[in-house]
């Protein structure tokens, strides 16, 4: 896993406050790594941000640092948690303009070849990386469509990986689930275009995150991007898209 797919494009980055101001953003896996970096950055840019994470103590730590963040405890890989999460998100934000499905599961740790992968590990990777984003997006689709009707340019970002494209040995559970998520994103983007909802899949590149440490414990961390750098790049991409979409709206945001 190496190549960065997202490049920061500073020349096109608009004033962040004008784009993110009052946008209602949901980020899953929001207490560590890329998710946390995006949550803090979006909050600083004026967005109303709610994060979803499994560990309530981690949520409370983050909310202590950034009190305006909303935190919802729940596990997106669990079917029974999806509506409780959704209702708490809507209770916090009222609606949703941007959903970032960032929470990911690696599969078996340490990484092993597919032949040594337990079925349960593959299932968990699919539940977290594919079914979770599918279910949460579906539960929030009414809110995203409402956002579109109000000219707020809704979008869903699914965090992908170059393992979704390239078949890396030992990354079978993760790679297969991310490949499925990538494909799902592209199909859903076409299907929802009439409703004015964009669905993207972006690869943030190799980052120095807890997930990467699990996967490659002996990695040379100096070669890895910081989550903050990746967050900046990913958000710059979204920002450019939002500026373009907002400008294409005949009616201004309310």
């Amino acid at each position: 896993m190496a190549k960065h797919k997202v490049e920061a494009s500073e020349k096109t980055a608009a004033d962040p406050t004008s784009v993110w101001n009052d946008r209602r953003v949901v980020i899953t896996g929001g207490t560590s790594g890329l998710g946390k970096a995006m949550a803090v950055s979006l909050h600083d840019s004026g967005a109303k941000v709610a994060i979803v994470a499994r560990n309530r103590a981690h949520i409370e730590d983050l909310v202590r640092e950034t009190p305006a963040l909303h935190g919802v405890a729940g596990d997106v890989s669990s079917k029974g948690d999806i509506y409780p999460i959704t209702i708490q998100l809507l209770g916090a934000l009222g609606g949703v303009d941007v959903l970032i499905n960032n929470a990911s599961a690696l599969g078996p740790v340490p990484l092993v070849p597919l032949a040594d992968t337990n079925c349960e590990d593959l299932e968990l990777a699919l539940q977290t990386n594919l079914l979770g984003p599918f279910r949460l997006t579906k539960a929030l689709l009414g809110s995203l469509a409402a956002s579109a009707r109000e000219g707020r340019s809704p979008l869903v970002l699914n965090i992908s990986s170059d393992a979704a494209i390239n078949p890396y040995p030992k990354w079978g559970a993760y790679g297969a689930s991310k490949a499925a998520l990538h494909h799902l994103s592209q199909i859903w983007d076409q299907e929802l275009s009439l409703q004015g909802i964009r669905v993207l899949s972006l690869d943030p590149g190799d980052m120095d995150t807890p997930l990467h440490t699990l996967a490659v414990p002996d990695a040379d961390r100096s070669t890895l991007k910081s989550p903050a750098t990746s967050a900046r790049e990913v958000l710059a991409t979204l920002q450019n898209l939002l500026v373009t979409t907002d400008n294409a709206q005949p009616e201004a945001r309310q």
Partner: protein
Amino acid sequence: MIAATVPVQRPPDAKLVAIDAAGQITHFPRSNFPNLLRAGDVVIANDAATVPASLFGIHIRTGATIEVRLAGRRSLEPEAVRHFSAIVFGEGNYRTPTEHRQSPPELRPGDGLRLGSLRASVVCLLDHPRLVLLSFEGSSEEIWRGIVRHGRPIQYAHVPVPLEIWDTWTAIAGPLAAYEPPSASFILNWSTLDLMIRRGVYFGTVTHAAGISSTGDPKLDARLPFDEPYRIPQSTTRLVQGARERGGRVIAIGTTVVRALEQAVGTDGVLRAGEGLATQRISRETRLRIVDAVFSGTHEPGTSHYELLRAFVSNEVLENMNKELEEHSYRTHEFGDSIFFERMNLAGANVNSKKSEGCGTLGLPTQFANNGRKYRRSTLRKSLNPRQLSTIFSFDSAYSRMVP
């Protein structure tokens, strides 16, 4: 009519009866619903998401087991969750029809309730021993967390399988506003919405706090619908304006949409965006200013939903429709079959606005007035004259081409 007992939102065999402006009655498979729409029409649905509003717990002063069903709040703002109006039942569960449910213990102002992790107290009774205003403890975040952890969707005696939250959410569900599902919108899925858009039909929403459909007490049922907050998005007012300019119809999906739109329109005929409180009871005397047609579930005579239909069509047509529904074994209630009415040219009178009362200015449930009449379901049904139902039906040319 027979009750629909299986919680499937779009059963493949669902039926639809359509009544056009001339009073002609036609039957369709409900999946043909988009064929009733014309390019230029504006379809407006209620996008309220349904809160799991049934909370079991303990009435602390007596130790009695109770079921609290949240019925309303005064605003749609997500953080406005400290105060809810609620119906309280005694011990028992949904398998007992609401009219046979035990009464709650005597509820007094100040009484504490323990509902899972939630703590609430009775602020006051709202003119009825089982209708109360509750005040919940904690931040709005804690209250929502308590509701999702402990709350279940309000269940129905006629649906034996317990409803899950996703059974009660429509495809378009967004804002947390309803306590029972705005079930007319069950007909909508994304394929249908895409088809409508492709055919030049416009789609918009209102958010209306659809409330409780049955309280278990005829006196309380006669007060339904309670005052309900709604919100009309700017985009919907533009769509309605566009329909007026094009000569397209405004078609409401569900009675709650009729209620919100007809409340939000000024005497100048202009629909106003923003949040408001629907206090009016739409009936035969109501002059509809916005809605040209309504798509709805089937309703039994005497219910407020049924009375609302009188604003669209004459009593005679309504009675004809009832006979048709019986003859064709239509199913009723949330997961049942559907009706589609175009507005006839009825000489409507004034909108009957009610004023809120009870518990200061909270604007929650209102009073008993039903245009001076009180209905009991059974008596009303008996009052139908069978001889009036003998009209012969013919296909209207506008509809007959849609018959499969």
